[in-house]
């Protein structure tokens, strides 16, 4: 164990302050979200009430935070796999003996407390991934190693998907941020984003318009390959490009599509005459694959995704198809609450929509709407700024880490935090689809707070030893 004096010197106080302020704000916001109009006057406090439980969970989390901090830093790198293993066992066990709440078998219940092993899956996966990637023989240029790394976090994600809890499972995708930092090719990310964009785009805009856009990109690509891209050819294509872009907003897309196919054939023919075969062998299959994906995306959307998942995408991208009293309800009510806050907010415990239960799940997933309504734009800005500072601080800690384990683990935590932060706040405003994950440190839910406390404590511990090796 390091000497206490070393801790004080190397301890990152800023992270602790940011962490504690988020926990404190969380406590107040949960109190506000749970506070109801008929509680006016004396608040009837009991330990079994939502507030009582949250106070106990906060106390436990802080205690565990301190205990975790004083565990030797080598413990984590040494026991990363056993911890991962235990977490996976818990995830399997919960499927067998867990209690089902709202259709998901995600909880162990005892003594009136509920415990969600998925949150510890994140801790386990972050440790295991850090351990594996920090191993000196591991290289993300090697396909096998890439697959093993992915398996480390896909496995718990799959188990969680079986509960089913798609939101918590999706959080594991944040580990791709570590993979990026540790050398996975950026082109893979580019292709992934293009495919996701193509899939979602095909849901929103007419299929002919998608084809038209793909062909325009292909034609633009071909023209760069032509040896003598003379002025008449450029002008012709330029004109077609402009007309096609305008056509995207009219119903002439089909006619323009034919024109663009003819241009594609013409350019292709010219390339062949110039003796360039190879680009065509790449472009044509890619075009066909992209077209096929666009064509089948609607089919996949309707047949692969669960109805409630379709609803959430619809609420996000096609709100006019959604039932305002049904799937659109949560987001609509949440947005109403945020809007009603205005610049300064209505004040602590004065949010009428909050007090009157207008926003479903408000103390958990939609806690941000309480902040928006009662604390207004200033409060919302404050929360976002604290989160950004915390995440940036963790990247600083990561980069100054001497050991790859500390760096990778810290990026893992930053990634998880970022995913929760962006998705959760984004969904309360309809910016991203509703994915039921909590806002770290703020949302009600003991396991989440406990797991994030452990993650931060481990980071601080690993960081505190940066001078001692």
């Amino acid at each position, binding site marked *: 164990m390091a000497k206490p004096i070393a801790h004080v010197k190397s301890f990152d106080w800023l992270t602790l302050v940011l962490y504690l302020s988020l926990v404190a704000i969380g406590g107040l916001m949960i109190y506000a979200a749970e506070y109801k*109009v*008929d509680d006016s006057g004396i608040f009837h406090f009991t330990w079994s009430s939502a507030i009582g439980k949250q106070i106990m969970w906060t106390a436990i989390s802080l205690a565990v935070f301190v205990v975790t901090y004083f565990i030797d830093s080598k413990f984590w790198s040494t026991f990363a796999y056993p911890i991962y293993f235990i977490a996976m066992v818990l995830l399997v066990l919960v499927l067998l003996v867990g209690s089902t709440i709202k259709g998901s078998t995600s909880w162990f219940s005892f003594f009136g407390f509920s415990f969600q092993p998925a949150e510890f899956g994140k801790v386990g996966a972050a440790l295991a991934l850090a351990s594996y990637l920090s191993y000196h023989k591991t290289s993300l240029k090697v396909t096998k190693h890439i697959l093993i790394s992915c398996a480390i976090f896909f496995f718990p994600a799959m188990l969680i998907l079986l509960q089913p809890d798609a939101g918590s499972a999706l959080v594991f995708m944040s580990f791709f*941020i570590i993979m*990026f*930092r540790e050398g996975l090719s950026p082109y893979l990310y580019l292709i992934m984003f293009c495919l996701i964009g193509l899939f979602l785009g095909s849901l929103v805009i007419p299929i002919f318009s998608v084809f038209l856009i793909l062909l325009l990109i292909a034609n633009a690509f071909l023209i760069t390959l032509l040896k003598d891209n003379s002025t008449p050819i450029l002008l012709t294509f330029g004109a077609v490009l402009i007309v096609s872009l305008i056509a995207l907003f009219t119903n002439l897309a089909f006619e323009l599509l034919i024109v663009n196919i003819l241009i594609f054939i013409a350019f292709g023919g010219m390339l062949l005459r110039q003796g360039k075969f190879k680009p065509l062998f790449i472009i044509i299959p890619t075009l066909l694959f992209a077209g096929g994906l666009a064509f089948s995306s609607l089919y996949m959307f309707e047949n692969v995704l669960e109805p409630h998942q379709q609803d959430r995408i619809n609420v996000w991208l096609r709100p006019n198809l959604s*039932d*305002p*009293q049904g799937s659109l309800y949560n987001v609509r*009510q949440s*947005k*109403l*609450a*945020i*809007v*009603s*806050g*205005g*610049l300064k907010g209505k004040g602590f415990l004065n949010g*009428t*929509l909050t007090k*009157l*239960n*207008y926003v*479903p799940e408000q103390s958990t997933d939609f806690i941000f709407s309480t902040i*928006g309504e009662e604390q*207004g*734009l200033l409060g*919302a*800005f404050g929360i*976002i*700024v604290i*989160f*950004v500072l915390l*995440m*940036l601080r963790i*990247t600083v800690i990561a*980069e100054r880490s001497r050991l790859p384990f500390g760096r990778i683990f810290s*990026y893992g935590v*930053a990634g998880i935090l*970022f995913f929760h932060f*962006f998705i959760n*706040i*984004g969904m309360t*405003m309809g*910016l991203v689809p509703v994915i039921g994950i909590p806002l770290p440190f703020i949302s009600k839910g003991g396991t989440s707070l406990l797991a994030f406390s452990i993650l931060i404590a481990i980071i601080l511990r690993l960081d505190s030893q940066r001078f001692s090796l």
Partner: protein
Amino acid sequence: MEKTIYIRATIIISAIILLLKVAQLQLFDSRTRTSAQAAALSKQVQYPSRGLMFDRNGNLLVYNDALYDILVVYNNVNPAIDTALFCKLLEIDQDTYIKRLNRDWRNPQFSKNVEFVFLSKVSSKIYGRFQEHLFEFPGFRARLRNVRGYQFPGAAHVLGFINEVDQSFLDNHPDEYESGDFTGITGLENSYEKELRGAKGYKYILKDNLGREVGPYEEGRLDSSAVPGYDLITTLDIDLQMYAEQLMKNKIGGIVGIEPSSGEILCMQSSPSWDPNDLTIHKYRTERFEELLKDTLDPFFDRTVMAQYPPGSIFKMVVGLIALQEEVTHPNQFISCNGTYHNTKRDIRKCRNHPAPYNMSIALQYSCNSYFFELFKNVVDKYGYNQAERGLDNFHNYLKNFGFGATLSLDHFNEKPGFIPDSRFYSKTHPNLRSPNIVSLGIGQGELQMTNLQMANLAAILANRGSFITPHLLKSFRDAPQKLSEKATSKRSVRIAEHHFIPIIAGMQEVVNSGTGRSAKIDGIQVCGKTGTVENSHGKDHSVFLAFAPVENPQIALAVYVENSGGGSRYAAPIAGLLIEKYLNKTISISKEPLEQRLLETNLLPSVTAP
């Protein structure tokens, strides 16, 4: 390190996107802000009580009767309630219960958490029974609505009725009314809607997501209580009005009685009429309404202000007065009459056989046609025989001063103006107008048309010797700051010198004392009157009587018009006499009781509709 920058940039850019979205929502989305308030706030309407109506002596005429709307919040209804009892209490069947409770929930307009009207217009009798069991039916509540009740079964046309506003009305009054509100449709209810209706109050109540009330909004600082409408005091004398109704029972026509000194309408009766309680808002209203609409005698047609009749002989006073004022005659002029009047060589008009009209009074007493044909010709030909147009227009201007040819009342929206011809009117039919062409006007026939109200006003003008105050039905609003309009208080002169009325009124006295209107005579009260018999090409003549009494300091002036009843002396004059006696003496003398009995029993309705 390059990758670190990408990661940090991603974090910062994402945060900026979130910040911009929060700012957009909280600072610039005013449309959603409005609905944010609506989501948590419920605005409850407090209906004001409509102003009551009283007669001139303080008798209550129109009051408010309770009627209830049964409201429900779907989600608060216990599905296990005893629906059989519920339906029995409200007198509906099970199908109605199910149909009314289940709305189209897919329509976002409805919500299972929002209160809606389950059953409207429940009478206080049914509600009384239902109320005792209301606690057994959670989710249901009653809202009180005021509808009209009437103390007397009369004055239906004057008082008017109220009805629920329809869509076209709402379109025309977008800010003032909401669906489900009542508004005055006819009569005083319509004319003084603004004063009677009062102002609705609003209570802002916070509701939770289940539609439960959790308390007042902002401690009730924005709440307003309903302001009751002003009570309206009419000029009517309800005893006189009801007596007029009785006398006009089974007869067609109108009676208007005016207090000459004030222009206040004492009674205004159009017959046939209906009991106003029949058209108050209740379950059977529609049927009764249809019945009245189908009635061939058209009870909704207000014969006091909408029917335009030729005035007949009562117009002779007007001709006499204008002739005197124009100095084309003098009170003692003698015009010979042998029972006929030679208008032109070929046009010979009938007159009755009567004593010779030595002066104007005698001519009036016996209603000599020849005399007034001649006076009228003198007026029209004042500027020369070939200048009849000028003479007629001069005559026309006098008539305008009398309030003829234009709407008169201050309280009616459906009043007809009547008609008085001028030279332009004849320019097509008579390019060279000569007095013989239009001589019928001299005895109140021809193209002349007047309403019953204008005739009563003529009686008031005669009683006042040359002036009148525009007749009106509104005496005042109780506790209201506003005064009556200037029109209802200012005197209008007909521009005829007072001394010209002396021979006219003398003649009218003789009409009652020993002329055609003897049946209007009252012991101890000098009544002045004039009968009229209006030729009716469609059937029996109309009977008209114009009167005021007493001769000095007149208290009442009235015109009685009875359609298809024959001469003015038969029905109109005795009815007028009884009304005057009732008003001035409060009772009918024993000697008149047989006459009263006969009139009450007379049925002049066309035989088809007679019972």
